[in-house]
């Protein structure tokens, strides 16, 4: 099992390395990458099949010591391990990742044809898949962080794939940096965990928490730690307020968007929360739910007015991820993960569908300029429609099952705790979702074509592009997950595969309903619906049908309005927009998040950096240069002093000797004979002086 997992993990990396190095030499090398992906997918399916069928709930894990610092003086044993952990969640996730990645690869063969960096594109896809599978398989949080960052890198490379466009390179940079902000929070959280437990492994961290060993021995810091790690998820899963990178990330090639939005990057955030769900306290969960609710609501309102088909889908992704995060926050753990899977398929279908449309329309992305494409691109239309129905939560689709579960979860939560905000937001967003999705469908596929010329040239995409669409649309139906189209709890996914989460937090920090009553657990077992406690199970059960009916109503209302507005034109959109101009512009301008950040954080940082740069040059360096020039000034003063006073004395002495010399030089005639006379005279004089002999 582990060997297969290792193979699945590293195959895409091999694909990346081979493709990136041989890319410029062998034109057909992308084919190799595709085969690699197929093998990975096969491996993932085998893995999932064996794990789910024969191993039941046992978790298989394996690790090796990566860094061993031995027994250290102050910190005890320091060993950092890398390892693989296979539980149900991981194997399900890996199948989703590999499947979608494979389909995106296939789709891209045609979509990207003719690109000058064709092979490199496939190499990056391989790297992206590798990074994501690392996140899925990991058994410790440091390794999670490592792959987390690698996902950041791959997204940077892919979003900025067409880096000749400034907007693309901007978007890539923005994605990476915004993600980094979240990652730093996550890293601080990891530091706190490591500081408290001296391990990164999930199991050991969970164990320590469950025996009441908390960071800094305080429940408050446990909450903070959880939220810091959640910050990583905010970044990766594009939750408010760090969602701004995601719509810009549409600058990347459309299949990449599908990959980012459905299976890899944004899913990582939710997956992280699913992984460490057990360490969140009630306070932390409430904040998570709030962030989720905001992220569900705000982007949904923005999506209403966007005209770029990819932007609409981008905002809908944030909104759906908000759903999942909110679901996790209110304790509807199983439904959140279920929604992650179902969403992955229909969102991939929508994105690839939009890719097909854009390809068919020769890079036209504005839905206001489309229309009537149903006839030209029937397969794309129908798959897109099915996926839209799924995301809107219409019965018989997978989306209906998972979304309904989430809504029921918020309902039950509100019932138990009194936080009615969450179900209200949930249902409202359900309506908005249905509305904007059908707005897109109607404007794109129905009605009359607005741009005749482009319409005439439009054509259905080739088989390799349509095949993934059909497959993904197929996966958006209910029967893959449960035999009962109205109740997911009967199905194998929820009752067999996704288990109720284990909780490790001290009971005093949990919601009441999350404190298990032993009697009940032993009686029922831990199937998904029967999580936590009897109280919760009852509330959930009671919420199920009301939530279903209400959500159906909301979705219907949304679709109906969309038809009224755009298909039958009973209500003039323009007039409405005119009337609520402020609101309309607020939505169209995306709540001014970008402007706000640009004006505050970005401008602040850049301005501050300019200021510091000038400070460095003028003040700090000025001091240095100042010191130098003061020294020079002083030295020139000393130099003058030296020249005039000290040297003056010396010169005076020299002058004096010169003067004396001048007198005596008269005697120096240079004539030997004169000297001889002096000698004679001197001898005679001396003789007279010393005449004693």
């Amino acid at each position, binding site marked *: 099992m582990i060997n297969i997992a290792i193979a699945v993990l590293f195959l895409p990396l091999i694909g990346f390395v081979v493709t990136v190095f041989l890319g410029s030499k062998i034109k057909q090398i992308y084919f190799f990458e595709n085969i690699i992906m197929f093998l990975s997918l096969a491996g993932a399916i085998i893995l999932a099949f064996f794990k789910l069928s024969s191993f039941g709930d046992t978790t298989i894990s394996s690790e090796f010591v990566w860094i*061993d610092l031995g*027994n250290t003086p102050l*910190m005890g044993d320091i060993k950092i391990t890398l390892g693989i952990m296979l539980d149900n969640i991981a194997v399900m996730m890996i199948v989703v990742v590999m499947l979608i990645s494979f389909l995106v690869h296939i789709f891209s063969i045609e979509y990207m044809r003719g690109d000058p960096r064709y092979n490199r594109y496939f190499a990056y896809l391989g790297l992206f898949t590798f990074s994501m599978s690392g996140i899925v398989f990991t058994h410790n949080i440091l390794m999670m962080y490592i792959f987390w960052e690698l996902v950041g*890198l791959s997204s940077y490379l892919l979003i900025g794939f067409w880096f*000749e466009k400034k907007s693309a*390179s901007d978007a890539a940079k923005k994605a990476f940096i915004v993600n980094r902000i979240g990652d730093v929070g996550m*890293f601080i959280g990891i530091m706190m965990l490591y*500081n408290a437990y001296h391990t990164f492994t999930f199991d050991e961290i969970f164990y320590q928490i469950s025996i009441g060993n908390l960071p800094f021995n305080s429940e408050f810091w446990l909450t903070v730690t959880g939220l810091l790690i959640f910050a990583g998820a905010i970044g990766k899963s594009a939750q408010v307020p760090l969602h701004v990178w995601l719509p810009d990330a549409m600058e990347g090639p459309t299949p990449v968007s599908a990959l980012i939005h459905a299976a890899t990057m944004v899913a990582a955030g939710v997956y992280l929360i699913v992984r460490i769900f057990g360490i969140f306290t009630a306070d932390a969960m409430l904040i998570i739910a709030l962030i989720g609710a905001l992220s569900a609501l705000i982007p949904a309102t923005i999506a209403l007015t966007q005209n770029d088909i990819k932007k609409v889908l981008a905002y809908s992704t944030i909104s759906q991820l908000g759903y999942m995060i909110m679901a996790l926050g209110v304790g509807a753990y199983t439904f959140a993960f279920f929604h992650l899977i179902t969403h992955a398929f229909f969102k991939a279908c929508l994105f690839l569908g939009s890719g097909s449309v854009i390809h068919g329309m020769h890079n036209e992305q504005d839905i206001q300029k489309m229309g009537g494409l149903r006839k030209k691109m029937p397969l794309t239309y129908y798959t897109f429609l099915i996926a839209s129905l799924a995301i809107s939560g219409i019965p018989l689709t997978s989306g209906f099952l998972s979304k309904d579960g989430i809504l029921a979860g918020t309902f039950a939560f509100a019932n138990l705790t009194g936080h009615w905000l969450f179900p209200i937001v949930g249902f409202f967003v359900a309506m908005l979702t249905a509305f904007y999705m059908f707005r897109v469908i109607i404007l794109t596929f129905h009605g009359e074509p607005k741009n005749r010329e482009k319409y005439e040239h439009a054509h259905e995409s080739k088989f390799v592009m349509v095949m993934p669409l059909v497959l993904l649309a197929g996966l958006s139906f209910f029967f893959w997950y449960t035999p009962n189209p109205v109740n997911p709890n009967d199905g194998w996914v929820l009752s067999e595969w996704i288990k109720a989460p284990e909780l490790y937090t001290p009971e005093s920090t949990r919601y009441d309903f999350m404190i298990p009553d032993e009697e009940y657990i032993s009686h029922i077992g831990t199937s998904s619906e029967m999580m936590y406690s009897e109280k919760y199970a009852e509330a959930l059960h009671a919420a199920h049908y009301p939530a279903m009916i209400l959500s159906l109503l909301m979705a219907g209302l949304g679709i109906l309005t969309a038809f009224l507005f755009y298909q039958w034109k009973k209500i003039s959109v323009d007039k409405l927009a005119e009337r609520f101009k402020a609101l309309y512009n607020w939505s169209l301008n995306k709540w001014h998040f970008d402007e706000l950040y640009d004006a505050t954080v970005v401008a602040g940082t850049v301005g501050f950096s300019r*200021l510091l740069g000038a400070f460095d040059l003028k003040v700090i360096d000025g001091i240095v240069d100042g010191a130098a020039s003061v020294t020079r000034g002083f030295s020139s003063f000393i130099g003058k002093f030296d020249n005039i006073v000290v040297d003056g004395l010396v010169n005076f002495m020299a002058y004096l000797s010169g003067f004396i010399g001048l007198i005596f030089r008269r005697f120096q005639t240079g004539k030997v004979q004169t000297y001889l006379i002096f000698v004679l005279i001197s001898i005679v004089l001396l003789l007279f002086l010393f005449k004693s002999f």
Partner: protein
Amino acid sequence: MQLPILSLITFLPIFGMIIILALPKAQTKVIKSFTLLITGIQVILAIFIMANYNYALGGIFEEATFQFIEKWRWIDIDGFSWLGKFKVDYFLGIDGISAPLVLLTAIVTFIATISSWTINKSIKGYFALFLLLDTGMMGVFVSLDFFLFFIFWEVMLLPMYFLIGVWGGPRREYAAIKFFIYTFLGSIFILIVMIGLYFSTTEILADGTRAFTFNLLAMMDPNNATETGILSPLNPSNLRLIAYIALFAGFAVKIPMFPFHTWLPDAHVEAPTAISVILAGILLKMGTYGILRVSFPIFPEITQQLIWYIALFGMINIIYGALCAMAQRDFKKLIAYSSVSHMGYVLLGMASLNTLGVSGAVFQMFNHGIITSMLFLIVGVIYDRTHTRMLDELGGLGVKMPAYMGFVTVAFFAAIGLPGLSGFISEAFVFLGAFGEPLIRVITVISTLGIILGAGYMLWALQRVYLGKFNEKWEGIRDLDLREYAMLAPLTIIVIFLGVYPSAMLDLMNTSVNTMVQFMHDVQVHYSSLVSFK
């Protein structure tokens, strides 16, 4: 007696220099190839040292656990009544702190030699000075006698001055003078403290008498302290604190630590590429190495008192350097400031005084040496082609130079600290270690901002130079040639290898780091019992 391999690796370049001086000026090819040969042999020697290095020995304060020791009397004067005996040892040896840096020096010098191929002004003089510089750097990392250490420290200064001042850019005289005076000022502090320590430490000679000594290891042992020595731990005055600060300032100039950093951008901008590589890759490490080798073990009790300040300066370096880098328009200056930022991590890690932090710091020294060398080489490559370093004049180069772009991506993301590349492990260790020290926990958390800012300025620079629309001005720009491959590829391999398998380097330093942490802890306890007033 074994082969004096440390002397060999240290003085081989001097030998090479003498031969080069004897060669005729016109034989430029021969001079270059000969330098390459000398530095190549140095790399082989360094690898040989690593291969024979015993991972179980700690070093730090115990002579017996140092490796490849060479020790004999160098200066031996008995005469002066007022000075007593004056004895200086020629004392070389390495442990886990210096071994990575010896390796780093060998590698970076070798790469810098390849990069020096484009020098075309008085080649003979350049390579002669270059080799002299090499000896100075290597000597600093292997000497265990303070006197010797100081001599090597100064030996390296002079060739650097000329290399910047003669072969540099337009403002080279200014930069060279600034560099020289600034570092010389730092040296004076070191010199003063060195003399103070000399008169506070005695060592038992073979004949049983005691004499003052420059031996660093002897200085670390409080039993060797004299009763009345000016910097003796037995001396109840604040002089030790002042001396510590002076010594720290001396080393801080080299790191360079805020606010002593302003020589760095100027020196880097003006220096030729190869010299920038050496400057950033090796010289900066000498500052932090000096602190680890000299300041910490000799003044453990003061270190313990001041870790908050050291960490604070580390934090300022990280954030200030990053913000300044963001403001730059000159590519090389940007990289220079990024060095300031990255060396801040080293300071922060050292301040933690625990295994993770110190390992991270030493590892970061090595990694920064490699990564920043890559970055400077990368700047050099464009400068050779376009003769500009202004970020705004470049743009879109990635389109025309795909192979180059690959190296750029690796280097930039390594500098950002991306996992899988070596910078990540050291940064993560520094943070994890520093967070483990309660005193500097808040500083650590604030310092993590550097991770975001680092990504910010690096990616912004990446975008302005390599992405976006291709600037038509540089039409016909060519991709890397073989020589440039030869200098970038080995560094890239090291970066990736150490990112995936950091143990290769961590194991090398681990025992020493543990010894050091233990020593700092023990001796600090010992000192506080020794000096009751504190």
